[in-house]
């Protein structure tokens, strides 16, 4: 085998692997990426039911209902719009009314979310960045006080 052939094989196989990887990345990008939406985003854009989304905001005070078999329903609000969320399982320790929350799951026909993941902030100083962002956009974010500390 000549030097040229050897070099060609090396370059050719590198390109083949890279192409395969790019193909994998692109196909995975289209199928397995989840967009974050605030409740207002959801109210404005009408997404197809069945889309996987993440929604973030505050747990609306008074909206939490606990059912049998660890079923929980609550509403996520950014102050302008509320999105109902259904979830079955154990909610995080810091899941409380009026506190920041991120829910991920499937959008249902009625505009509610069938969540398989519920995340809350993990200490009293920290609020999920996405929630801060959603609140800022709806104008409900107050600088200063406890919340500003949370944004650090």
């Amino acid at each position, binding site marked *: 085998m000549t030097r040229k052939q050897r070099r060609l094989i090396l370059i050719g196989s590198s390109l083949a692997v890279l192409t395969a990887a790019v193909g994998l*990345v692109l196909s995975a990008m289209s199928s397995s990426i989840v967009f974050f939406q605030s409740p207002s985003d959801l109210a404005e854009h009408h997404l197809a039911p069945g889309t996987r989304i993440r929604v973030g905001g505050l747990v609306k005070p008074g909206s939490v209902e606990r059912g049998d078999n660890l079923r929980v329903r609550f509403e996520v609000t950014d102050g302008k719009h509320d999105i109902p969320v259904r979830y079955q399982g154990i909610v995080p320790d810091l899941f409380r009314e009026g506190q920041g929350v991120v829910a991920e799951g499937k959008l249902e026909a009625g505009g509610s979310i069938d969540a398989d993941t519920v995340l809350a902030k993990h*200490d*009293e100083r920290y609020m999920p960045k996405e929630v801060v962002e959603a609140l800022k956009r709806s104008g409900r974010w107050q600088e200063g006080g406890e919340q500003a500390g949370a944004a650090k």
Partner: protein
Amino acid sequence: MIPELGHYALVLALALGLVQSVVPLIGARRRDTALMRLASSTARMQCAFVWIAFLALVLCYVGSDFSLRTVYENSHSQMPLIYKITSVWGNHEGSMLLWVLILSLFGAWVAAFGGNLPATLKANVLAVQSWIASAFYLFILLTSNPFLRLQPAPFEGRDLNPILQDPGLAIHPPLLYLGYVGFSIAFSFAIAALIEGKIDAAWARWVRPWTLAAWMFLTLGIAMGSYWAYYTLGWGGFWFWDPVENASLMPWLAGTALLHSAVVMEKRNALKIWTILLAILTFSLSLIGTFLVRSGVLTSVHSFANDPRRGIFILAILVLFIGGGLTLFAARASVLKQGGLFAPISREGALVFNNLFLTTACLTVLTGTLYPLALEALTGAKITVGGPFFNLTFGPLIVALMVVMPFGPLLAWKRGDLLGAAQRLLAAFAVGLAVAAITLAIEGTHSVLAPFGVGLAFYVMVGSLTDLAERTGLLRTPLGTVRARAAGLPRSAWGTAAAHFGIALTLLGIVCAGTWGSELIVEVKPGQTISLSGYDLTYAGVKQEPGPNYSALVGTFIVRSGGVAVGLMQPSKRTFATRAMTTNEAALMTRGASQLYLSLGDSKPDGSIAIRFYYKPLVMLIWLGAVVMMLGGALSLSDRRLRIGAPKPATKSSLQPAE
């Protein structure tokens, strides 16, 4: 007084660092031995001064000196001693101090063990090492000084984040940093080689032990972090494809590639330029990891409270070193003498294949980690790239790599015999196929991936032992001969086999725990019994127990298997008053390599409590595999020819025993 002493020591370390950044370089240019030797002394002194600074900070934490801002923010007088010590690096400032401590430690090690290095190379390496160190000393002193005082001093601290109040904090960050920072040596060697414009097989021989040592620490550090997340987050996941985890995985992938390409360079004097580039990239990925975690672009348990100046400073360091390194590479790589080419079917070819797949896999992880950040910066859209993305991209590449892995050690250098290697792997193929077939028969066809994964793991396990069996003549020669031959095999051959065996063990653990694990998330009343995978769990009750700085709600559950009691499980929830926070302490029961996992949820006034109960078959193999990989590295490192400081046998003849 103590904090000022620490602060002063750090400033002195910076001064020494600046001297060491310049003087040895001049010495190396002028061939002035005295100037070059200076580097060895300053490297040791730097290390001593950083130790003083670090110990000063430890003393402040142990003595609960709340006049220091970081101590006030991250410690509490009621904390047990071990957490007072570990909280030194449980915050941004202290963890950066640990970072430079380890960096200076590696510098001192090169000074101490690099006696057989050519004087100019050693001087240049230490100078480059000192550039990195000086940049980070400056970063600490200007933006993240751990010795800042508060006036007036508060009476009590705000406590360490309860999630971090765990023995894991004592082990995980130091190990991870030893790995991350250890790759700086490979970087410094690469830059020094570019400065000198000279590189040969001996270079690889010097770099490899350092890379191997860093790789071992990183392997163990990642595994430790994974196990910590597994038992502390309460839902039994062991890898989340969280950007911070990816930040540690990327240097590991690049470092693994570097280890393998350095072998080619050492044995065959080929792949030189590529190896240099990999050395630069590996440490660059470590720096990117540090940037991602420390700059506050990501929010996670790892990113402590942050201010934006720090992010910009680290970004500047990042641009300086990665950009500078790559520019130097572009300018000087052509000066280096090209290595030879080789046949595609050969040991070298197999190692190139390894490099190709590892770096591509690393690239997919990098894409998945940085894409959301880039998209948010450009369009403002927020997306999550999670497990599914990486399973679809990283997964197939690693599977392809593992299929080929057993072939590598069986191929000869220069020109290998693919058919011969395949024949010798017949036993491995047979075992893999048989295991896959049995799994498929038991499991049915609803999951094809699981039998494939289990088969692949067994194929790699048998395959990685095939080389050893071949070379000791196992089953073909009398046992005495086998034993004699086994004793004569180079340790690095054992190391390779062990490392490859380890990765297969990890794969087996991931597949089994993922496929045949079962879970139950229910509410139980006292006295109630639930069943999962042949285990009966009876809820006996809960009680409140006080801890040193928290109060715990401890549940007691009796576990029976086939009617026989096998033990108690006592998961708990700890409430920390200072931060109004709760942590979950899952109860684990290890049965062979499998585990039962139990964590508590909310309790109700009627005495019932929500629980998560998991059965995780063979889950321990995931981490055991990493330990075996690490031991493989240790075996290789102890190989006579690789031992740090061993005199170099400069023969580069192709008659060398291949392994």
